[in-house]
């Protein structure tokens, strides 16, 4: 446990010694704010149109039901944020294993009293913690919209859980990609590719037949993420993201064995 905690502390120090961590935090909050205010601006324009031209003055009962903060701001922000995270998370995960390999410090770690499993666990734990902090920061704007839109706290919590699980799932994939490369760029590109492919397979359903389509839907991230956004907390969806994390961690652990064999 001492060795594991020492590695966790080292990982945190390394992470926050790099401008990348601050850059990623700033970028995610900035992008979230931009997405939020952009949707809010569109929503306001729609309200303005109803208020000024059609009715000759703003009256709330003249605005159709589907024009509300929840449907016009909150859900579109979450949808865009989900896709944006696919692009942003690999910026954080790309260096985690690849940088160690490129520097040769992975061998130093292995000659200490650290097992490959401990190394993988420590790196996953620190990355997860950072991603959760990032998500908490980025959730401020959607939460503000939610409070105004009259969505309950439970729904809000479900959305945050979904957003976090989605980000952690992407982080897991990114870490697995980083574990198999000594190039941060290759790790990032691989993470983007895997993330975008796994995001939503619904488009492929029409080409591969019904059964295969169902399977592809089963491994897609979007339906799970969307479900949390709707306020539906489903154990099956938890299991999906937990599975993603476990498979990724197992792959990262396997990369150590693979390197011992391949050299």
């Amino acid at each position, binding site marked *: 446990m001492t060795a594991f905690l*020492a*590695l966790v502390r080292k990982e945190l120090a390394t992470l926050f010694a790099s401008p990348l961590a601050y850059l990623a935090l700033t970028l995610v909050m900035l992008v979230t704010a931009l997405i939020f205010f952009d949707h809010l601006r569109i929503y306001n324009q729609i309200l303005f149109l109803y208020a000024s031209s059609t009715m000759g003055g703003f009256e709330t009962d003249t605005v159709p039901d589907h024009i509300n903060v929840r449907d016009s701001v909150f859900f579109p922000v979450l949808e865009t944020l989900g896709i944006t995270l696919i692009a942003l998370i690999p910026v954080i995960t790309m260096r985690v294993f690849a940088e160690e390999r490129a*520097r*040769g410090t992975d061998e130093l770690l292995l*000659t*200490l009293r*650290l097992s490959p499993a401990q190394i993988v666990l420590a790196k996953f734990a620190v990355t997860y913690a950072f991603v959760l902090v990032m998500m908490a920061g980025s959730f401020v704007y959607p939460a503000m919209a939610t409070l105004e839109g009259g969505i309950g706290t439970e729904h809000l919590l479900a959305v945050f859980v979904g957003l976090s699980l989605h980000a952690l799932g992407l982080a897991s994939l990114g870490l697995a990609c980083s574990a198999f490369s000594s190039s941060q760029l290759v790790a990032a590109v691989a993470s983007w590719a895997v993330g975008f492919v796994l995001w939503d397979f619904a488009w492929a359903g029409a080409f591969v037949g019904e059964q295969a389509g169902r399977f592809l839907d089963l491994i897609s991230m979007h339906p799970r993420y969307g479900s949390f956004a709707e306020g539906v907390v489903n154990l099956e969806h938890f299991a999906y993201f937990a599975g993603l994390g476990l498979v990724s961690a197992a792959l990262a652990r396997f990369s150590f064995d693979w390197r011992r*064999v391949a*050299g």
Partner: protein
Amino acid sequence: MTENARRGVRVEADALTRRFGDHLALDGVSLTIAPGEAFGLLGPNGAGKTTFIRCLTGTLLPSGGEVRVDGLSPTRDPGAVRARLGFVAETSRLYPELRVEGFLRFAAGARGLAGRARADAVARVIERFALGEVAKRLVGHLSKGFQQRVSLAQAFVADPPLVIVDEPTGGLDPVQRDEVQSLLRSLRGERTLLLCTHDLEEARALSERVAVVNRGRLVALGATSDVLAGDPLALFRAEAAA
């Protein structure tokens, strides 16, 4: 220094072989290093020295044969073997963004030292390797000579009975080389020291016995003065491995 470190450990390689595809990096190398011995592993670049060390530290699986530290296999008992060794890598493989003291604290913690024991161990190596003046500085801001001292310090922080040093003076200027060699000289006799180098003078100055590997084969083994007498460069030429 503990009694354990003073005694050192025995290192044995028995027909150690390692292939990378068609390339035979180690070809049936057999040797024994006695406890407490300063042993030099010599050879030209690409001879298989680093491969030997990687098999010994357990970061590479042998294709054949076996290597043992204190009777333990790095393949079957990696944790027990790592508990007995300190490793100084070929180039200073360090974390440039960490401060010297922080890095040594991490190295001590990762070797299972906590609390007072960790603080004492860090203080001890900082004093022994004369790192006091740079203890608060970032590793990446140090000269190569100091970085190599930090690398040595991390290997000694848990006082292991076996220390493996891979090309300790590579890339250093003459003054830095002399400093690092003086440090290594002072470490002889207190534990098993495996020095991996292509520098004949370094091997002569620091090793009691040497083994010369060339193209993955063991071409000479014996007392340093005997093996390096005459024309030792002949052992480095391709014909020696034929």
